[in-house]
């Protein structure tokens, strides 16, 4: 995908894109160009479009007016989409830990019990996803493509803060629509240096036309290299922090993490804390469950712990509790 773009190969195929030729070719049907927020005719090809997908909007009563699809004009869907999760990430002395459950639920049904909610983008960046499954999957693909393009064009890797900014700007045109994406970027920045920061800021300033809603990161005291944890969501929020938990099970995970998190934790203690947090959240939240995935990111890159079925953990926990209860009864 990325190499195709460098060679401008995609432009030649643009007019063959399925929904521009096989759909209704009535000239009154325009396609919404989301990145620049304007209508454009179906036949014009876009040079080097930042968002590689063209979105088809259903014809609505006020299609003459220029508006993004919102609830009163969109077609109602007859099926539910996958949602609901527990993901968390935190920074400690040994790097960054990212953990998530693996259940994808659609309405009341478990659509898939073994989803990968944590996806590596490159060797030092991992993304945990929450919200609608399809949205997260596609936006992660788009992000991976854009990061790779940046690396090919500028011969250096974009920083985590730059990545978060890029993602936030790409999601901005979809603010107010049904796109529901809440990603936590967990990574390690490798090089320090002021010139790197200036380069990435000026790149985005020239590219972006509507920067009105950009949230500023006012964290000038954080170092340029080292572990980073940034939360980006489709509402437009972009937050840097030391601990994040996202999803329907996040209140339970926060409770466990806030109770046990210290900067000085060892790697094993941190892993066991993250596991415990996800386990407690899956126990109490109906929309989280099945297994726990754990990633650990250090200066050397990310490493994945083997996926663990929480069913075993639950039985071990029950065993421990009944032993305590028996002990208490004996003592009385």
């Amino acid at each position, binding site marked *: 995908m990325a190499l195709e773009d460098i060679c401008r190969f995609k432009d030649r195929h643009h007019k063959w894109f*399925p929904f521009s030729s*096989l759909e209704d070719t009535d000239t009154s049907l325009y396609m919404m160009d989301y990145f620049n927020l304007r209508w454009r005719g179906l036949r014009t090809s876009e040079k080097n479009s930042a968002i590689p997908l063209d*979105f*088809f909007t259903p014809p609505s009563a006020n299609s003459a007016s220029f508006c993004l699809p919102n609830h009163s004009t969109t077609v109602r869907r*007859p099926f539910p*989409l*996958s949602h609901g999760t527990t993901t968390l990430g935190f920074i400690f002395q040994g790097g960054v830990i990212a953990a998530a459950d693996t259940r994808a639920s659609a309405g009341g049904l478990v659509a898939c019990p073994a989803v990968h909610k944590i996806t590596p983008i490159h060797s030092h960046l991992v993304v945990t996803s929450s919200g609608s*499954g*399809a949205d997260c*999957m596609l936006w992660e693909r788009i992000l991976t493509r854009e990061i790779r393009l940046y690396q090919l064009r500028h011969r250096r890797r974009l920083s985590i803060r730059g990545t978060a900014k890029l993602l936030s700007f790409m999601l901005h045109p979809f603010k107010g629509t049904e796109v529901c994406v809440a990603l936590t970027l967990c990574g390690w920045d490798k090089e320090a240096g002021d010139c790197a920061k200036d380069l990435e800021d000026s790149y985005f300033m020239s590219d972006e036309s509507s920067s009105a809603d950009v949230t500023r990161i006012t964290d000038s005291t954080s170092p340029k290299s080292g572990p980073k944890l940034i939360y980006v969501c489709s509402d437009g929020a972009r937050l840097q922090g030391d601990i994040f938990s996202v999803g329907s099970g996040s209140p339970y995970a926060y409770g466990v993490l806030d109770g046990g998190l210290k900067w000085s934790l060892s790697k094993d203690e941190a892993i066991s804390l993250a596991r415990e947090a996800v386990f407690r959240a899956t126990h109490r939240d109906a929309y989280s469950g099945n297994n726990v995935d754990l990633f650990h990111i250090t200066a050397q890159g990310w490493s994945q712990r083997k996926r663990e079925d929480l069913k075993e953990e639950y039985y071990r926990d029950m065993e421990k509790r009944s032993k305590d209860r028996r002990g208490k009864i004996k003592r009385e």
Partner: protein
Amino acid sequence: QLSETKMLSAQGFGDPGKMKDYHYTGPVEHKFSPYAFNGGTVLAVAGEDFAIVASDTRLSEGYSIHSRDSPKCYKLTDTTVIGCSGFHGDCLTLTKIIDARLKMYKHSNNKTMTSGAIAAMLSTILYGRRFFPYYVYNIIGGLDEEGKGAVYSFDPVGSYQRDTYKAGGSASAMLQPLLDNQIGFKNMEGVEQVPLTQDKAVQLVKDVFISAAERDVYTGDALRVCIITKEGINEQTIPLRKD
């Protein structure tokens, strides 16, 4: 604005693909719906060197049956078959679009698309209609580049995953737990986990569809099974309950 004030009877969109209630609920305004639910179940299983895609052949709408011979498996390449269930109009258009894209790929790259590539492409095609989705539940079954069986299951907006087995469509909620137990050996203790042979898999698929036809009104009439091996695609049709 009018759509917000109308009374949504059970015919509305909160209830995916089930029948309308034919009793009086009060005055209801009916808006044109671009979607319809045509029923049908698809199933795919991946083995060591084979893949099976099976579907029933009933096409229904509401209380009527439109056709008893409308299979939902479509052959894409010599090593890939897709099963599509949901709204039949979207299934037809989607398969036409996939066929066109396969041809384009063949003409520009001088090779056929692999199963994994087709899955990734379908994901972007489906997501392109994020705001007016194709009402289709897709499952792709085929052989990957190494010759091993592969199954890719999709949701209507393009989220996908490689699996060993998956059921989709109207009886999916009934069949998936059965497959979890028989193929995935889930929820059983102390069982020897033998890998699935091709004959056992075909027999299991037939038994599973017979059960589905018993309990789901939208599934029945006949079963079409496509078995994909490196020799090619072998199709069988087995009759099911017609009531």
